[in-house]
């Protein structure tokens, strides 16, 4: 029997893209008081579940990690309902305004702390390809660098070798499909092509209520308040404005030459 595998999945709580986004605070940031698990992170959770289910080792662990305000517990809950075994929440008012640089720093500290907490090394960190709010896609690379681990970005397939010493992933670029191999432990971000995330069933919803969630402050992770949040960030949001309402557009009444007018429009806008 192979060693148990510990997979940490980064999950982010984001505003529901189906609803209107609201800016609040000074400096203004997107209001995250209500939201959902970032849909792109569901692919990472599913990938982790499929990897461990394929191994069929009852001691394997899929652990969800989030950093964010109290509402981020919702993202953890969803990950637990999907099948993660436990959750970790980095929760601290001092974290507000953290940019990708700080976020990666906090999450790296949390991953190391999880290894100590679980009494086992973290073998794999899975992330989505981007968050559906900030969309910087910067965190996975920085996290791998801080942890000193191999990084595979934008995997559209992922498999472990038999003894879970290495992984094989497919990367789709605009011009080619690459097959890459990396030794574990590693950080892998997955795309929305890697799988079809499941829907949690009622049994899993009930079971999730009993799964452990550990909450840590920045200090618990050995981080100073000055090193995180607005204070520790390298980038600063100077201004955030709501997206302007969509303009009314131009209405062309088809009087027999609608097709020609449409073609003219496309040519004028250099769309064809």
């Amino acid at each position: 029997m192979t060693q148990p595998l510990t997979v940490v999945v980064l999950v982010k709580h984001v505003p529901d893209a189906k609803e209107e986004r609201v800016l609040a605070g000074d400096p203004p940031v997107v209001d995250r008081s209500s939201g959902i698990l970032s849909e792109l992170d569901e692919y990472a959770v599913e990938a982790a579940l499929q990897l461990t289910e394929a191994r069929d080792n009852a001691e394997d662990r899929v652990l969800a990690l989030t950093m964010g305000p109290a509402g981020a517990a919702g993202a953890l809950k969803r990950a637990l309902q999907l099948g993660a075994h436990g959750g970790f929440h980095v929760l601290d008012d001092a974290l507000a305004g953290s940019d990708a640089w700080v976020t990666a720093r906090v999450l790296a500290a949390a991953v190391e702390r999880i290894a100590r907490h679980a009494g086992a090394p973290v073998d794999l960190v899975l992330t989505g390809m981007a968050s559906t709010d900030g969309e910087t896609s910067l965190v996975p690379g920085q996290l791998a660098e801080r942890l000193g681990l191999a990084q595979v970005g934008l995997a559209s397939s992922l498999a472990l070798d038999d003894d879970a010493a290495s992984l094989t992933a497919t990367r789709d670029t605009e011009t080619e499909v690459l097959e890459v191999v990396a030794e574990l432990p590693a950080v892998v971000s997955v795309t929305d092509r890697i799988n079809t995330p499941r829907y949690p069933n009622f049994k899993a919803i009930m079971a999730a209520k009993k799964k452990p969630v550990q909450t840590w402050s920045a200090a618990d992770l050995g981080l100073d308040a000055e090193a995180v949040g607005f204070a520790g960030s390298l980038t600063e949001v100077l201004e955030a404005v709501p997206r302007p309402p969509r303009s009314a557009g131009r209405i062309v009444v088809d009087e027999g030459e609608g097709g020609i007018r449409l073609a003219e429009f496309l040519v004028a806008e250099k769309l064809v």
Partner: protein
Amino acid sequence: MNTELDEEYQDLSDTVRDFADEVIAPVSAQYDEAHAFPYEIVAQMGEMGLFGLPFPEEYGGMGGDYFALCLALEQIARVDQSVAITLEAGVSLGAMPIYRFGTDEQRRQWLPQLASGQALAGFGLTEPEAGSDAGGTRTTAKREDGQWVINGAKEFITNSGTDITRLVNVTAVTGTAQLPDGRTRKEISTIIVPTDTPGFRAEKAYSKVGWNASDTHPLSFQDVRVPAENLLGEEGRGYANFLSILDEGRIAIAALATGAAQGCVEESIRYAKERTSFGQPIGANQAISFKIARMQARAHTARLAYYDAAARMLAGRPFKTQAAIAKLVAGEAAMDNARDATQVFGGYGFINEFRVARHYRDSKILEVGEGTTEVQLMLIARDLGL
């Protein structure tokens, strides 16, 4: 007093809502148009555990309860009543009688495959001359050499002819009881008939006004022989047993109808904001906004009615009248909302592929099936001592 959902119910409801919007809604019009049974959707619902919601885990269920099933039905029926009735009939009429009245052996034999959605069961009650008046039942089952020999016919049986239908629970006359006043009464029993039994036939599917993707057939039984142990529940108790199944089922149908009514509201709000006429969205006119406000009031009322009936049932209190009220108001809410929604949609409301047009065709049966509106009124009046 609280009608807010507990967290796990809310999470289940939200999850099924997402599934309905993302998986079912995009293909509903196609299945409806083709009158095709949605096997793929049923399989996915099975994986999600929806067919096992009210059953214990030891029988392959989710360990939930009947209210959880109702919440799922409401969310699915918003977008597709055919899929919702497939689930409703599969659980409440197909599997539930086996769970409620079956022996442990019958439960172990049938429930795991039914609870996983890999197999479906039908409930063969209605006959050409027997619906809510079960005394008119003509199908007979006679004991012969350790077997039941069944002859007769059934009408309007949901889920009875799909590729994954494995059995039908059939009510049949098994004897005559002598009443104290000298009159006689038919004794009715329920018998499990596997669909591969010789002499059993699911006849040609009906051409229905709505619920086109739901599977409905007349059934015929010609010397159908099944083992004596296929008796479901006590001999002669079939009538009482299916009445209790129908009482529960009314709550589930009320939940389904509530979903239909809410689906009409949602579609109407969207369209009223989107569609402009005389320079403004049509929703800016009170003729439209008041209509939609009234639709919302109907859906809300229907929901409270079925929540109440379900709460009573789960608490083990009498719920027959509340279930009848829920079925009555929810069925009417669905039909009334469908009529109003098609009006909001104007010409598009008359085009089959539009969801509100489908609700218009689908909702009529909610005033008829599982006890007509008149039967519900009869039950309520009886409870009032009238």
